[in-house]
């Protein structure tokens, strides 16, 4: 079973606050799921290696014209803002 400390460490990396009972349930669920993943150890290595994706799929780095109202709506959706700026809490 994965330890409480390990769950808390992963939760911190994920920026996720977990209540005590959630930590306990997570220990149990994560352990069962990780055990299930052991199945993959049986899988052979692929014979030939593939290059993932078609690199030419990236679009040109250019500005696409959009309706300015979309920008206003996006700013309006921010929970904390001043004028056209989104406010962010101090890091320290």
């Amino acid at each position, binding site marked *: 079973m994965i330890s409480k400390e390990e769950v808390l460490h992963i939760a911190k990396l994920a920026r996720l606050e977990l209540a005590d009972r959630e930590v306990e349930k997570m220990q149990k669920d994560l352990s069962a799921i990780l055990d299930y993943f052991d199945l993959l150890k049986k899988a052979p290595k*692929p014979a030939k290696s593939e290059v993932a994706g078609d690199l030419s799929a990236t679009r040109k780095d250019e500005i696409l014209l959009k309706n300015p109202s979309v920008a206003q709506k996006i700013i309006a959706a921010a929970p904390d803002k001043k004028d056209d700026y989104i406010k962010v809490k101090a890091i320290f």
Partner: protein
Amino acid sequence: MDLTELTIKQAHEGLKNGEFTSVDLTKAYLEKIKQSDLNAFLSVTEDLALEMAEIADEKIKSGNFGLLCGIPCAIKDSIMVADEKCTAASKILENYSAPYDATVISKLKEAGAVILGKTNTDEFTMGSSTENSAFGVTKNPHDKTRVPGGSSGGSAAAVAGNLACYALGSDTGGSIRQPASLCGVVGLCPTYGAVSRYGLIAHASSLDQIGPIAKNVEDSKTVFEAICGRDNMDATSVDYKFEEEKTGLKGLKIGVPKEYFAEGLEPEVEKIIRNEIQKAEIAGAEIVEISLPSSQYALACYYIIGPAEISANLARFDGIKYGLSEPGNDLLDVYLKSKGHGFGAEVKRRIMIGTYVLSSGYYDAYYKKAQEVRQLIRQDFAAAFEKVDLIFCPVSPFPAFKIGEKADDPISMYLADIYTIPMKLAGLPGISVPVGKIGNLPVGLQIIGNHFQENKILSVAGLVESKE
């Protein structure tokens, strides 16, 4: 005549012949939605629907209008419709309003569609029953004590319960086909890249695809044709144009993967699927037993790659840009509390798995290994499609299950997608077509094709769908 029972084609004929207007049709659906206790919709966009219906009626009067013009539909609540709420069934987006239309929505609007509302889903489309919705489970119209499947359970239940003529869903590991099977409607998961994902709230970006849920195969084809194609806003979409093809069963090579008829498949489901395969054989198809040996790893592979992508995609819900924001002492505190209070149990579980498999020391053992296994799965299917034209197999190992039956055991819930996940990892298209029932409960046949062979799948699906 109950207007809500009509297919797209039938409703189109009625509109063309002036038997009723789009406003009549829209009002009939809105009334039915109001009376419904299925909890298929998270929001009903009544004003938008009536406005669109009036515009459609004007177009119809002009005589120049397509099949989808004036036809009311439902949209999964993970797909953005401008200025309407888009929650992805999550508390973190409970009050979020979409700033723009998804490309599929722009296309439907262009075609004159009428949008009735946004349908329930598992939170962020993660689940197989809609039980992970923050806003309550959707009930299966065939048995209200049972789930509709998921995650596009609201869309499937809406179509099956005549609350919409058709619907859009999204499929990451089975989320269109499995609920379509459990609700007895047709669900098409297109090839990865066939339909733009722009405006779809991301779950796992290397797998997500939008597709139609409809009453029959012909309607699915109509909707797919309207939404597919290259979009500049989605770099993974490809230049693809649907071309109708008439594929008969005579001489068609149908592969039946032996691994899909093993332990875990309910005998009554197996009987219905085998019967369908036999009917195809009688109609002249050649049945070929095939092997997809790496399928046994697909579920584990999916629950590594999916959560890894989830942990990255859902990092954006930080309480700063949009959505729920909990007050905190500093930035980290805002992140921790907003995510901690905003996400439900399954979403948290997957973020945790994803973060774990990508974390230092575990990356090679889990994430890298899963990518290698994904390659094996792709190679299995590639080898199979050298021998056969299409694959026939079950969609779900069991019909609709009871609400609550699997809710506390993540792995038993994950197993609901055991037959829909492998082909997703290979980016292939598949459809669920209703072919039988166990008591009241529908069972779907899954037809999988090679990349961009939706035309072949739809053509053959039209021949096998049960015509009740």
